[in-house]
């Protein structure tokens, strides 16, 4: 069984946020909800100042604190490591949100599902069909586009990235590209001190 994971190549990321747009489109995400974001930061000291870009996403942690603290079992990990939320079990207590060190979960508030992205307070036909996959008051997060992955495709953000800064694959396969990149370029996990063992790595 594959163990899916992702590598972010920080040298390649140009901060275009095409990944965030593709994700919103693929998952019909409501207003104010993002499963992935590319953050920016200015670092350095004048005159040597530069801007860096940091893509973020659910890290599908091996020891996921969100799964551990969930009081209903709504958050669970699939055998391939993808951490999911069962919307029929979620009670919207938010415990998983405060337990996730990466702030990658969102509770769907009623106004998010009422107002469309295009103003006027009305939903487009695309939004109407897309929002049926959500339940108000429950928590949502990135699923590595599990339907695409199950069909043998890459997650939407990976397929869209114009610079191939996002590399997705089986971390258990020594021949897979993400695994090789992690080994060759000493990939590091976000906030390793939180002991969650993320399946997302950064290389620079």
């Amino acid at each position: 069984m594959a163990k899916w994971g992702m590598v972010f190549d920080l040298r390649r990321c140009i901060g275009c946020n095409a990944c965030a747009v593709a994700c919103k489109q693929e998952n019909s995400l409501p207003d104010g909800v993002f499963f992935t974001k590319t953050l920016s930061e200015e670092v350095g000291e004048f005159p040597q100042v530069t801007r860096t870009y940091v893509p973020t996403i659910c890290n599908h942690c091996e020891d996921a604190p969100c799964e551990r603290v969930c009081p209903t079992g709504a958050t669970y990990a699939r055998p391939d490591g993808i951490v999911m939320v069962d919307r029929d079990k979620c009670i919207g207590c938010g415990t998983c949100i405060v337990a996730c060190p990466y702030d990658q979960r969102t509770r769907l508030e009623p106004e998010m599902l009422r107002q469309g992205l295009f103003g006027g307070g009305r939903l487009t036909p695309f939004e109407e069909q897309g929002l049926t996959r959500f339940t108000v008051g429950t928590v949502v997060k990135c699923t590595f586009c599990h339907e695409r992955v199950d069909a043998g495709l890459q997650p939407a953000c990976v397929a869209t990235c114009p610079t191939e800064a996002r590399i997705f694959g089986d971390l258990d396969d020594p021949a897979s590209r993400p695994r090789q990149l992690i080994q060759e370029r000493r990939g590091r996990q976000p906030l390793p001190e939180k002991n969650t063992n993320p399946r997302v790595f950064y290389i620079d």
Partner: protein
Amino acid sequence: MIASNGRIADGGFRVGVGLQKAWGLHMATAFFFGEAGAGLYFVSQFFDFLLGMGVGLLMVLFGKAGGHLLHLGQPLRGWRALTKVRTSWVSRGLAAIVVFVAAGALHVVDVDADVLPAAASQLVAAVALLSCFVIMVYQGFAMSHSSAITLWSGGLMPIASLTYALLNGVLLTLVLGFDAPFLADHPDTVRLLQVAAVALMLYGLVTVLSLLHGARHGSEAGRQSVSLLLHGGFARWFVPLVLLLGFVVSALTMLVAPPDFAWMLAVAGLELTGYYAFRVLMFKAGSYDPAISFAYRFRH
């Protein structure tokens, strides 16, 4: 000039510390009533003080459970939270509330009408007291368990919960039971409870300061949280309400107060105001570390 993070990103597309917004006023109110009600019941049961036990039960049943129901996104599915007692402190807390309300109510009826045989009566009292104790501490564990938020995860949160719960219990017992025989006829008991309250206030103050100290040196987010509480936007509430009114002024007032109902009421009011502010501000100032940042490397 150094360009660095260390700023509050607050949901934007910037690297920085993010404030948590998942737990807010409803949860703070639920936590407030949970620790105040359970503390009142806990202290009252030692004196078989029926009014205190009854009010404590009602505070937990309506205040705490009501606050949680208002907070939930799907309140009708709330019963599902009982299903993961092995791993989740929220599940454990809900189980404790259910057991406490049942056993506590039975114990109140038993104390009032003597309906149970001696052995069963003792068992019910013990179960009520044990579940009450769990409610007094579990909220601290639920917060402390979240390693994501440095302000909460230092390990002192359960101690703060227990201290506040006992303090609330002692003060509310002094107010509600002021004219009851167990206090009115025993001035030594009143004095003992007053000394206990002052000791708990001092202990609570040191616990809260230690909690801030630990968070301040724990991580960037912890430093930002403490800065918000002591110097930033929340300082105008945290310092005067939580630290001064909640501990210092109420302890000094209790030390000099004559054994008078109005004074007891004033001290309880001051302390409970500080405690509610503590609960609200702990949620508001809780923050996440940036997942990854390069500013630190540049700076050092």
